[in-house]
């Protein structure tokens, strides 16, 4: 139950950290951490405006996306390992719930019929084409090495003991892969710059260009929640299983800070370079699987 409360409050809070750290890196004061929360509640009260070509999809898609992501989040271990639901093979449901959210958002974006949304959606979807299999293979690699069943067992800390060198190697590699997926999914710098205002270069932002008011707030919260999910998966992979829960909080903050540092140091890549890089998590997962397979055969 603690997880449920945890995911309602903290995502927007943690997202607020990034602009703050970027500003400090540059020597500016930056907007307050709680600003995102305030914007969220302000947006909920505002009225909405829709294009005359829009169909009901664009009105209800963000709601469905949020509920799907929220239910997916309930499966994932955040602070405590005991998740609200968990059954054998629930990671498939999680992945598909996330892709349902993304799919519905893509449809909603195409509703207004402006060319920006079309461009943004096609780029976003071409990313998912490589991320979904990557997620599956990452989960497969973990199962192959530790043999756990449901999602909470997989990502729960006790899977990776540091004393076994192979498990730790696999854990680290997959953590990096998941981190890259985090950057892509939440459209952070190397792949997409959230702060840009030139529609031609946006990917995720342009999809939500046409939303306003209540729906815009919902979308912001969903994006933050998704980022929060990936971050917690990464942290669970890195942390050894016997550590107390506050280490988990420290690591989460460290991840968000590292994203901010990364953003301020690197510029974004060219559009088709992005596509090549999106293959990275897929390759890492395959590499780890190959290594584990070789170990299984007793090569080392």
């Amino acid at each position, binding site marked *: 139950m603690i997880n449920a409360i945890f995911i309602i409050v903290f995502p927007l809070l943690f997202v607020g950290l990034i602009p703050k750290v970027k500003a400090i890196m540059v020597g500016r004061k930056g907007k307050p951490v709680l600003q995102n929360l305030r914007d969220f509640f302000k947006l*909920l009260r505002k009225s*909405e*405006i*829709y*294009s*005359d*070509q*829009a*169909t009901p*999809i664009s*009105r*209800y898609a963000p*709601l*469905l996306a*949020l*509920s*799907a992501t929220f*239910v997916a989040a309930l499966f994932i271990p955040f602070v405590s390992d005991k998740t609200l*639901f968990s059954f*054998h*093979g629930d990671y*498939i*449901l999680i992945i*598909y719930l996330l*892709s*349902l959210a993304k*799919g519905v958002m*893509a*449809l909603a974006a*195409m509703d*207004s*019929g*402006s*060319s*920006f949304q*079309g461009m943004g959606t*096609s780029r976003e*979807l*071409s990313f*998912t*084409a490589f991320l*979904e*299999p990557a997620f*599956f*293979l990452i*989960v*497969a690699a973990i*199962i*192959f090495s530790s*043999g756990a069943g449901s999602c909470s067992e997989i990502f729960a800390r006790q899977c990776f003991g540091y004393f076994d060198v192979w498990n730790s190697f696999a854990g680290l590699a997959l953590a990096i892969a998941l981190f890259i997926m985090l950057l892509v999914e939440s459209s952070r710098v190397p792949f997409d710059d959230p702060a840009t205002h030139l529609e031609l270069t946006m990917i995720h932002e342009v999809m939500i*260009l*046409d939303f306003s*008011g*209540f729906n815009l707030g919902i979308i912001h919260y969903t994006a933050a929640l998704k980022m929060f999910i990936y971050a917690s998966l990464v942290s669970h992979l890195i942390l050894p299983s016997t550590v107390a829960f506050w280490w988990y909080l420290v690591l989460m903050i460290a991840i968000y800070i590292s994203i901010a540092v990364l953003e301020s140091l690197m510029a974004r890549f060219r559009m*088709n370079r992005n*596509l090549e890089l999106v293959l990275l998590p897929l390759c890492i997962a*395959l590499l780890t699987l190959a290594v584990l*397979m070789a170990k*299984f*055969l007793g090569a080392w």
Partner: protein
Amino acid sequence: MSIGIIVLFIALIPALWKRSGYFVILWLLGSAFLAYEYMEVMFSRAIQDYILTMPMPIGDVSIALNKLSAFFGVMFSLGLPLGMLYGHYYLKEHQSPALRSHLFWLGIMGLSMHGVLWIRHSVVFLMVWELMSLSSFFCILFSKRENMEAGLNYLITMQIGAAFLLAGFGLVYLQSGTFDFSGFEQMKPLPMYLILIGFAFKAGIFPVASWLPQAHPVAPSHVSGIMSSMLIKTGFYGILLVLSLNRLSLSEIAALSFVFTISAFWAVSHLLNERNLKRALAYSSVENIAITGMGICAGLLGMHAHLPAMAVFGFTGAFLHIFFHSIFKAQLFYGSGNILQATGTLDIDEMGALAKRMPYTAAMFLIGIFAISALPFSNGFFSEFTIYRSAIEAFDAASVAHILPSLMLLGALAFIGALAMIAFIRIYALVFQGAPRSTKAEQASELKPGNRLSVLFLSLAILITGIVPGIALRFVKPLLRWFDLDMQIFAGLQQQALQISSIYLIVIALFALFYVIRKLCVREKTGATWACAYPRVSPKMQSSSITYIQPLAYFLKPFMYKKSTHVMAEHPFPQKVEYLEDHPDAIWTLVVRPVSRIISKFLLFFARIHNGKTNSYIAWALGFLVILLVWVVGFR
């Protein structure tokens, strides 16, 4: 059995008097009887057997039902009447002189599809099999000249497929001594491969599936709906029949899964680039058959590696996917039939904003899209969920030889699932959303309720079996017992189905909650689409079918056979600058057509011998006489 079949035969009479209404009613009645019969065989009593004696070389023909054919039988007896119902309304729009013959052949096609399931004797089976191809050929034709080319290709491909089957059955007869299907037990590899290839022709698997994307777009919608949801399954029924009676070695299973993977990739890459709505759906049929095949391979791997869990999940996933695919594919085809009637075109680039003009069809098409891209809430999701589970179960297998193919299956399935989702989101977005791209799309209007009836039934079926997959599982249960698989694991799966349904309920509850909140505290305004610094968004500015897929195509290009013609601007005032890109079916343009051209050129080389001069004819006779004499006297 007899009542159902007799009623269906009687249904042919109104067909000959152009009474399509009575035709549909009789078909409903007949199918109900047959469904009862199939259900009975599925759930309770043993196989019920008739013997039909035929003259000497053919011997006695046994007509019987086993659990597998009963499963397909139930599917046909549910799907066919719906198809006929849709056809009835569809044909009311298309007043064509060939109505009487079309209904007649439609009836024959349905009957032969049921017949294929009953007969257990290879000669008579092949006879009904070819009758099915013949009747579907005439249905596709629908006495229209433009369908001639596709229809002809379809018939000849089926003829070649039947030749493979012929060879396979002949060899089995020689090996086992009887034409009966009981001879299928331990087939030698060669006949088994031939029979599998023969069935692959009809099932639409990669190297031999190029007839499918040609035949479906031209066929009338109800025929293409029936064909791609049920006729293809007869091919798969044959494959399953052979696989269930024989033990495959590991390398054979690996090869089979490789073929299915290639078939899926080929289909998806074409699906992404397709502009014709029905051809896209045809490619997606090939892809879904490939996914079912992957499920079967996973099941077989499980059996081979003695992993009961993997086997149970694999086969359940495959059977579920067959059943669900026939539901949502038929729904999508009838939906596209409605679109064709409303707009008069199937080209995606000429459509747009149909959701505003055809709200019902748009909603139902959305449900179909959910199902085919296996998103939650749809039945497609649960079958792929089970197949994923079986692929991952392989990890605690003993030897790597089992893990590698299942890994390949897992990766391929994930990749294809993602691409399929993208393709169908693209199709939905281009067809239903944005601004109308052509006058046809502009004047489109919703059809009479009759046309939407069967689409509505199928959409409800998708949602029900999607949200509560337990129903379908109970339906598949006897089939698994027939494959003698472990039932506790199956019970575990049923348990998980309940859990998934409960999670769906939670998501729906949340959605309802947010919906209510939004209803209360949000005021809505509508205005023009936001255009960044230009006056008005014109339909031309929307992303077309090619630009939508351009970033992804960057990766698929090397695998795709592209034929592009472009006219460059030579001098400063160019008249015409044009770039046309087309992705024709690689197998058809690079393999089948050149080979047939070479064969006909070789044959026509001999056409000169008929030169009209009598003495050259006599010269041939004399030459042949001398050759034979020398051969007979000299060498014998």
